[in-house]
C-alpha cells in the first residue's frame, strides 16, 4: 500500500506524457531525415521494431549516466566509482581515469562478505590453487568435486531441508528449474511483483499462469477458488497440480512475504509452494536462515525453497532445496545441472566458509554479530528516514529500503546530487517498477558503521530537500526530547 500525494501523481503523469510527446516528435523528425538519407541496411531486416525500443532510445538514454556506473574496487561499504563524461548528451559515455571514493548504498552486501574477509578469503584462495578457477565441465561430466558435494550438504543443512542442488548462476536457477518441474496441465499462481527470472521460467514451462495481488493472501485464496472451480482453460478438466510462487523479500519493495497466511491457504487448497529467498537467506532471521525462521514457518511446509548466493554470501550461484526425491529428479532432468558448467570451486568454497561464519562454526561469534548489526542498521536507518519525512517502503527488519521519488525528473536529480556528495545510490524506474512509482533503493549492509549511516542520512536529507521528495511531514526532534524529559519526571 503506497501513499502518494495526489498532486505528485498528477504531475508525474503529466511529466511522463511530456517526455513521451517529445520522444514521439523526435522520432517523427528522425524518420523524415532518415527517409532523405541513405540506409546501410542492404536488404537486412532491422534488429528491433521502431516502437519497441522507444523507451530505451528516448527516455532511458537521457539519464543513462545514472545507471550502470562502473566500479573499480570490491563492493565493500566504501568503494571506487569510475567517473564518466559524455560529449553527445548521454548517448555514449566515456570513462576517465579518475576514481571517486563513495559510500556504497546499492550493493546487496547484506552481511559484508563482498570484500575480503579474514576467514573466507584465505580458504577461497586455497581452493582456487587446489581446484583452479573453473571446473570446465557440467556437473554430470567432470564438474562435481568434493567442494560441490560439501556445498550441497552444507546448504541443505543450513536451510533446513533434506537435500539441495546448486547451480552456477542465480537467474538460471529459476528460469531452468521451473520449466523442468512444471508441465502443461499445471497452474502457476505467482505474486504480481515476482522477479523477472520467475516470470521467464514460468513462461518457459508452458503452464497456465495466473497472478494474485501482491502479498495479499485473501486475493490468493480468491484466485485459487476461482481456478479450481473453473479447471483448465477450454477443456475445464481439473488441474494436474497447482503451485504458488512467492518471494521471501521483494527486492523492489523491501516487503517481507506474509508466509504463514499463504502457507495456510495453500494447505487448505492442496497447492504446492515455491519460495524464492534470494534476498532473505542469510539476511533475516535469528541465525540467518531466512523468512521461515523469521516468521516461524516450519520448513517442511514449504515444498521447494530456492535462493541465491549473490546477496548475503558474497559469491555467485543459486540453490534449490527440497525433499530427497525432488532433488534426485532435478539431478536427472535440470538443464543447468546437465549442460551448464558447474559453480566455480573458489566461489563454492566462499559460500561454505560464509555459512560456517554465520553459524559460528569458525569458532568466533562474528556471524551472530553481523546478523545483529544488519538488523540494527536497517531498523535505525529506516526509522531515521521516516522521521525525516521520506516515504520509505518495506517492513521492519528488512535490509532493503526503497525511497519513493515518483517524478521522472527527480530520478537523475537525486542520483547525480548524491554522487556529487560521494554517496552512491541505485535509482529504479519504469519498466522495472510501475510507471508512477520510481524509487531510489537502499541496501543496508552489516559492514556499514554507525558513522557511515549518519553521513548517508545527512547527505540524503540535504539532497531530499533540494529535490523535494519529503512527501510526509517530518517529525520534529524536539518533541521526542520533551517526551523523554516528562517521562523521567
Amino acid at each position, binding site marked *: *500500500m*503506497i*501513499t*502518494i*500525494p*495526489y*498532486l505528485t*501523481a*498528477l504531475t508525474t*503523469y*503529466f511529466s*511522463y*506524457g511530456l517526455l513521451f510527446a517529445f520522444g514521439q516528435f523526435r522520432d517523427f523528425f528522425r524518420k523524415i531525415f532518415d527517409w532523405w538519407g541513405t540506409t546501410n541496411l542492404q536488404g537486412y531486416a532491422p534488429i*528491433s*521494431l521502431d*516502437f*519497441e*525500443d*522507444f*523507451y*530505451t532510445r528516448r527516455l532511458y538514454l537521457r539519464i543513462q549516466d545514472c545507471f550502470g556506473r562502473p566500479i573499480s574496487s570490491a563492493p565493500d561499504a566504501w568503494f571506487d566509482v569510475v567517473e564518466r563524461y559524455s560529449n553527445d548528451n548521454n548517448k555514449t559515455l566515456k570513462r576517465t581515469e579518475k576514481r571517486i571514493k563513495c559510500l556504497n548504498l546499492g550493493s546487496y552486501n547484506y552481511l559484508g562478505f563482498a570484500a575480503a574477509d579474514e576467514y573466507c578469503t584465505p580458504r577461497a584462495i586455497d581452493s582456487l590453487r587446489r581446484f583452479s578457477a573453473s571446473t570446465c565441465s557440467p556437473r554430470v561430466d567432470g564438474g562435481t568435486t568434493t567442494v560441490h558435494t560439501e556445498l550441497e550438504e552444507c546448504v541443505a543443512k543450513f536451510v533446513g531441508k533434506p537435500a539441495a542442488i546448486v547451480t552456477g548462476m542465480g537467474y538460471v536457477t529459476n528460469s531452468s528449474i521451473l520449466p523442468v518441474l512444471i508441465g502443461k496441465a499445471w497452474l502457476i499462481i505467482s505474486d*504480481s*511483483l515476482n522477479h*523477472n527470472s520467475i*516470470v521467464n521460467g514460468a513462461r518457459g514451462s508452458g503452464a497456465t499462469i495466473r*497472478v*494474485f*495481488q*501482491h502479498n495479499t493472501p485473501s*486475493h490468493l485464496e480468491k484466485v485459487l477458488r476461482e481456478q479450481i472451480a473453473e479447471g483448465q482453460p477450454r477443456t475445464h478438466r481439473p488441474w494436474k497440480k497447482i503451485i504458488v510462487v512467492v518471494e521471501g523479500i521483494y527486492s523492489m519493495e523491501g516487503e517481507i512475504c506474509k508466509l504463514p497466511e499463504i502457507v495456510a491457504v495453500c494447505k487448505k487448497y492442496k497447492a504446492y509452494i515455491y519460495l524464492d529467498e534470494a534476498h532473505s537467506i542469510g539476511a533475516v532471521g535469528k541465525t540467518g536462515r531466512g523468512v521461515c525462521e523469521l516468521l516461524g514457518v516450519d520448513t517442511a511446509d514449504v515444498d521447494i525453497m530456492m535462493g541465491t548466493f549473490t546477496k548475503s554470501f558474497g559469491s555467485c550461484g543459486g540453490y534449490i532445496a527440497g525433499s530427497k526425491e525432488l532433488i534426485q529428479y532435478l539431478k536427472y532432468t535440470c538443464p543447468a545441472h546437465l549442460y551448464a558448467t558447474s559453480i566455480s570451486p573458489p566461489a563454492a568454497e566462499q559460500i561454505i566458509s560464509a555459512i560456517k561464519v554465520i553459524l559460528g562454526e569458525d569458532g568466533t561469534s562474528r556471524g551472530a554479530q553481523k546478523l545483529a548489526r544488519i538488523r540494527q542498521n536497517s531498523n535505525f536507518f529506516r526509522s531515521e528516514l521516516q522521521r525525516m519525512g521520506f516515504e520509505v517502503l518495506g517492513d521492519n527488519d528488512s535490509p532493503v529500503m526503497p525511497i519513493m521519488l515518483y517524478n521522472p525528473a527527480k530520478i537523475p536529480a537525486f542520483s547525480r546530487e548524491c554522487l556529487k556528495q560521494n554517496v552512491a545510490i541505485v535509482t529504479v524506474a*519504469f*519498466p522495472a517498477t*510501475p*510507471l*508512477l*512509482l520510481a524509487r531510489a533503493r537502499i541496501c543496508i549492509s552489516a559492514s556499514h558503521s554507525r558513522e557511515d549511516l549518519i553521513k548517508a542520512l545527512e547527505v540524503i536529507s540535504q539532497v531530499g530537500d533540494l529535490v523535494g521528495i519529503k512527501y510526509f511531514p517530518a517529525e520534529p526532534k524536539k518533541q521526542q526530547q520533551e517526551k523523554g524529559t516528562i517521562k523521567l519526571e
Partner: protein
Amino acid sequence: MANLYVKAVQPPDLNRNTEWFLYPGVWTTYILILFFSWLLVLSIFGCSAGMAWTIVNLAHFLVTYHFFHWKKGTPFGEDQGIYNGLTWWEQIDNGKQLTRNRKFLTVVPVVLYLIASHTTDYQHPMLFLNTLAVIVLVVAKFPNMHKVRIFGINGDT
C-alpha cells in the same frame, strides 16, 4: 491540495504498457490536460472559444486515434513482443471489455463533441468535422471491434 494523499494498491496487471492506467489520478490528469490545451489554443490562436474547442477536439481525435487504435505493441522490449499484434486499446484491462476505464475513455470524446458543437452553435464546417471525429473514435471503442482490422488495414505483416 498538497496534503491530500491517495493510496495506491499495485494492480495485478503484468502488461507494463497498460498497468499505469489503473492508478489513481489518471482520469483527472486526462481531463486537466484537455482543459489546459484548450487554454493554450485560445492564447496561441486568439480565436473564439468554440473554435478552440473544435481544434482541441480534432487534435484529441488525431492523437488518441494514433496512440490508442493505430500503434501496436509496447514501447519496450522486455515482454518479448507478446503484445505486438494488439493496439493499446486492445491491451488495457487484459482484453476485458466494458470495464470502468474503457467506459470512461469512450465517454470523453462524446463529452468533448457536445462541448465543441455547443460552443460553435452547431455551425458547419466545424460540426461535420466534430461529428466525424466522434463517430470514428466511438466505433473504434466498441467491444465488437476487438481485434477487428477493416480491409486488413494495420493488420499484422
